[in-house]
C-alpha cells in the first residue's frame, strides 16, 4: 500500500473532543470574558471579569480531581494527546499559578489602568495552552499550543504599554521566544525527516525498532513474512533534530546558556505574569520535554550523548544561575537567576530519565520512569507553590523590586515577611530547611540521580544549592535583621495602607498565599500525599 492510498483509507478513530471538555472550560471562560466586556461598562467588567476567570480556573481545577482524561496507555483526538502524571496533576499545578495570577491582577488592572477583558481572556488562553502542552503527544500540536501559551504570555508581560520597561521586557521575551520557536520547528522537521512521523507514540515505535518499518508484516499461506524494509534511522537527523528541539526548549525553560532574556523579562514584566512565566510555562515545557525524551530514549544510540548534553546544560544552569544570582540587587532578577538554577536541578531528573531505558527493562523500567516523572513533577509543584508564595507576597506588599525595599519588612508587615521567609527557606531546599516542599522535591530528585549512579552530579547539585542559600538568606537577613534605614532611595515594600474587604480579590490573594505557605509544609512532611493523588488519578482506575 503506498502512502497515498494510506491517506485515502484513513479512518478517523478517536475524534472525541469531549475528552478535552475540562480544559475547554478555560477556552469558554476566555471567550466569555471578551463577550462580557463587550456588553458591559468598564467598572462592571473590572469587577466581574476576575470572577469569571477565577471561576473558570477553579472549575477546571476541580474537574482535575476526577479521572476524566483517558489513561496513559491510550492516546486521544487522533493521537494528538496522551495524558500521564502531567495531565491532571500537572494541570492542577499549572492552574494553581494562574489562579493566583487572576487574584493579583485586579489591583494591577486598577492601578495601571489596563484593559481588563484582554488581560483575563489572555490569562485563560495561556492556561489553556499550558495544560494542553503538558499532554501533547504530537509535535506540531505541541508547537501550536506552545505558541498559544507563549503569545498570550508575551502580550501579558507587556500589557502595561505605557511602561517602557514592561514593553521592553515584552519585546525581548517575544524576540527570543520567536527565535526559540524557530529552533523548535527545525528540530521537529528533522525528527520528522528521520522518523516520518510527528506523533510521539509512533516515534517511540520507530526508535524501538531502530528504523521506519516500510512494509507491514503479512501472513501468506501460514507463513509470516517479516517486515521487509526497515529504513535505518539516520542518526544525523535524529541528533540534529533533537539538538535543535532541545535548544528551543532550553529557551522556554530558561536553562543556561539560553537564559539571557530571563532576567530582563522578569525584571521588566509585571509580577503576576512573571510568576506564571516562571512556574506554569515551565511545568508545561518540562512535561513536553520529558515526553519527547521518553519517546527517544528507547533508542540505545541516543542515550550516552544526550545524557552528556543534558547533564552539561544542567550543570551550567545550576552553577551559572546560582553564581549570577549572588550579585543581584533586584528581587525579580534574583528570582530569575534562581529560576535558571532550579531548571538545572530539574534537568538532572530529566537526565536520569533518559538513562533509564539502558539500565532497566520491562515492568521495572515502567516503575522507574513513573518514579522519575513523579519526582520531577513533585519538584515542579514545590517550585510552583513556593514561587507563587514569593512572587505573590512581593506583589501583595507592593514596593520596588530593589532588595533594599525589603529592609525591616518584619516590622511593617510581619505576616508577609514570614511568608516570604518561608518561601525563601523552601527555595533553598536541600540542607537547612528540612520539612519544606523545597527540601522534599530536591530529595526526591537527587534520590533518583543517586540511585542510578549519578552521585557526582548530585554532589554538584547540592553544593550549588548550598551556594543558593547565600542569596535567599540575604533577603531574609534584609527582612528580619536590618532596621529600616531612612536615607535609602527606594520606596519600601509593604508600606501601602488600605483596608481590605473580606472576600474581595485582595483577601482571596491572602487566602491563597496562606494556603501556599501551609502547603509548603504539608507537602514537605507528606510528599506521598501528592504522589498518591497522582497515582490514583492516572493509574488508579480506568474509564
Amino acid at each position, binding site marked *: 500500500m503506498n*502512502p497515498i492510498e494510506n491517506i485515502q483509507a484513513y479512518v478517523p478513530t478517536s475524534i472525541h473532543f469531549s475528552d478535552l471538555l475540562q480544559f475547554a472550560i478555560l477556552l469558554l471562560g476566555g471567550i466569555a470574558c471578551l463577550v462580557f466586556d463587550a456588553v458591559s461598562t468598564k467598572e462592571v467588567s473590572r469587577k466581574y471579569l476576575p470572577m469569571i476567570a477565577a471561576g473558570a480556573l477553579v472549575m477546571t481545577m476541580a474537574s482535575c480531581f476526577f479521572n476524566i482524561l483517558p489513561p496513559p496507555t491510550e492516546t486521544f483526538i487522533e493521537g494528538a494527546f496522551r495524558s500521564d502524571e502531567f495531565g491532571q496533576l500537572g494541570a492542577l499545578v499549572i492552574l494553581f499559578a494562574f489562579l493566583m495570577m487572576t487574584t493579583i491582577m485586579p489591583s494591577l488592572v486598577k492601578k495601571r489602568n489596563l484593559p481588563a477583558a484582554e488581560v483575563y481572556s489572555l490569562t485563560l488562553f495561556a492556561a489553556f495552552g499550558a495544560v494542553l502542552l503538558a499532554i501533547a503527544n504530537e509535535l506540531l500540536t505541541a508547537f501550536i499550543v506552545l505558541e498559544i501559551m507563549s503569545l498570550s504570555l508575551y502580550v501579558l508581560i507587556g500589557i502595561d504599554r*505605557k511602561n517602557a520597561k514592561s514593553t521592553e521586557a515584552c519585546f525581548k521575551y517575544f524576540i527570543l521566544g520567536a527565535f526559540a520557536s524557530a529552533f523548535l520547528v527545525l528540530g521537529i522537521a528533522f525528527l*520528522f525527516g528521520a522518523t516520518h512521523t510527528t506523533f510521539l507514540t509512533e516515534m517511540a515505535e520507530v526508535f524501538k525498532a531502530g528504523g521506519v518499518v516500510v512494509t507491514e508484516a503479512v501472513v501468506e499461506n501460514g507463513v509470516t513474512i517479516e517486515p521487509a524494509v526497515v529504513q535505518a534511522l539516520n542518526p544525523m537527523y535524529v541528533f540534529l533534530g533533537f539538538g535543535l528541539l532541545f535548544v528551543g526548549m532550553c529557551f522556554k525553560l530558561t536553562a543556561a546558556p539560553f537564559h539571557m532574556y530571563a532576567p530582563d523579562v522578569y525584571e521588566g514584566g509585571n509580577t503576576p505574569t512573571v510568576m506564571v512565566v516562571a512556574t506554569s510555562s515551565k511545568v508545561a515545557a518540562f512535561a513536553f520535554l520529558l515526553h519527547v525524551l521518553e519517546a527517544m530514549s528507547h533508542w540505545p544510540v541516543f542515550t550516552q550523548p544526550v545524557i552528556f548534553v543534558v547533564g552539561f546544560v544542567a550543570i551550567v544552569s545550576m552553577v551559572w544561575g546560582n553564581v549570577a544570582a549572588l550579585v543581584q540587587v533586584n528581587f525579580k532578577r534574583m528570582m530569575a537567576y534562581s529560576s535558571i538554577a532550579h531548571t538545572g536541578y530539574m534537568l538532572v531528573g530529566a537526565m536520569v530519565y533518559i538513562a533509564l531505558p539502558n539500565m532497566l527493562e520491562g515492568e521495572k523500567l515502567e516503575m522507574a520512569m513513573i518514579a522519575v516523572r513523579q519526582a520531577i513533577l513533585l519538584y515542579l509543584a514545590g517550585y510552583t507553590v513556593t514561587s507563587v508564595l514569593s512572587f505573590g507576597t512581593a506583589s501583595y506588599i507592593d514596593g520596588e523590586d530593589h532588595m533594599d525595599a525589603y529592609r525591616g519588612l518584619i516590622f511593617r508587615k510581619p505576616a508577609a515577611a514570614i511568608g516570604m521567609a518561608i518561601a525563601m527557606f523552601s527555595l533553598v531546599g536541600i540542607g537547612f530547611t528540612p520539612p519544606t516542599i523545597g527540601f522534599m522535591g530536591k530529595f526526591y530528585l537527587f534520590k533518583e540521580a543517586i540511585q542510578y549512579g549519578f552521585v557526582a552530579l548530585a554532589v554538584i547539585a547540592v553544593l550549588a544549592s548550598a551556594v543558593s542559600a547565600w542569596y535567599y538568606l540575604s533577603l531574609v537577613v534584609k527582612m528580619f535583621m536590618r532596621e529600616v534605614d531612612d536615607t535609602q532611595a527606594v520606596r519600601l515594600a509593604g508600606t501601602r495602607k488600605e483596608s481590605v474587604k473580606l472576600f474581595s480579590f485582595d483577601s482571596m490573594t491572602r487566602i491563597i498565599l496562606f494556603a501556599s505557605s501551609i502547603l509548603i509544609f504539608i507537602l514537605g512532611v507528606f510528599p506521598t500525599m501528592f504522589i498518591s493523588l497522582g497515582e490514583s488519578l492516572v493509574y488508579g482506575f480506568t474509564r
Partner: protein
Amino acid sequence: MGESIFEANLILSLFLFTVGILGVMWKRNAISLFMSVELMLNAANLAFVTFAFQHGIIDGGILVLFIMTVAAAEAGVGLAIFIALFRVRRHLRVDEHDMLHG
C-alpha cells in the same frame, strides 16, 4: 533528480537557518531581527517539504501549512509589540534598549 535536490535542499535549509541566526545576532533593528526569525521559520518549512518530498509522505505539506499559520500569528503579535515599543521609545534600535540590566 530526487537525490541531489534532497541533499541540496537540506543544505539550503540549514544555510537559511544559519543566516537567520546571524541576522538575530547582528541586526540592530527590531524589525530586521524579526525578519531573520521569519527566515529561520522558512528554513524549517523547506526542511519539512524536502523530507515530505523525499519520503513520499504528504504530511509534510500539512505541517508546513500549520507552521505558516503560526508564523502569521506570531508576526501579527510581534509587529503589534513593535508598534507598542515604538510608541514608548520612539525607535526600534535593539542595542539601545538597555533599561533592564543588572
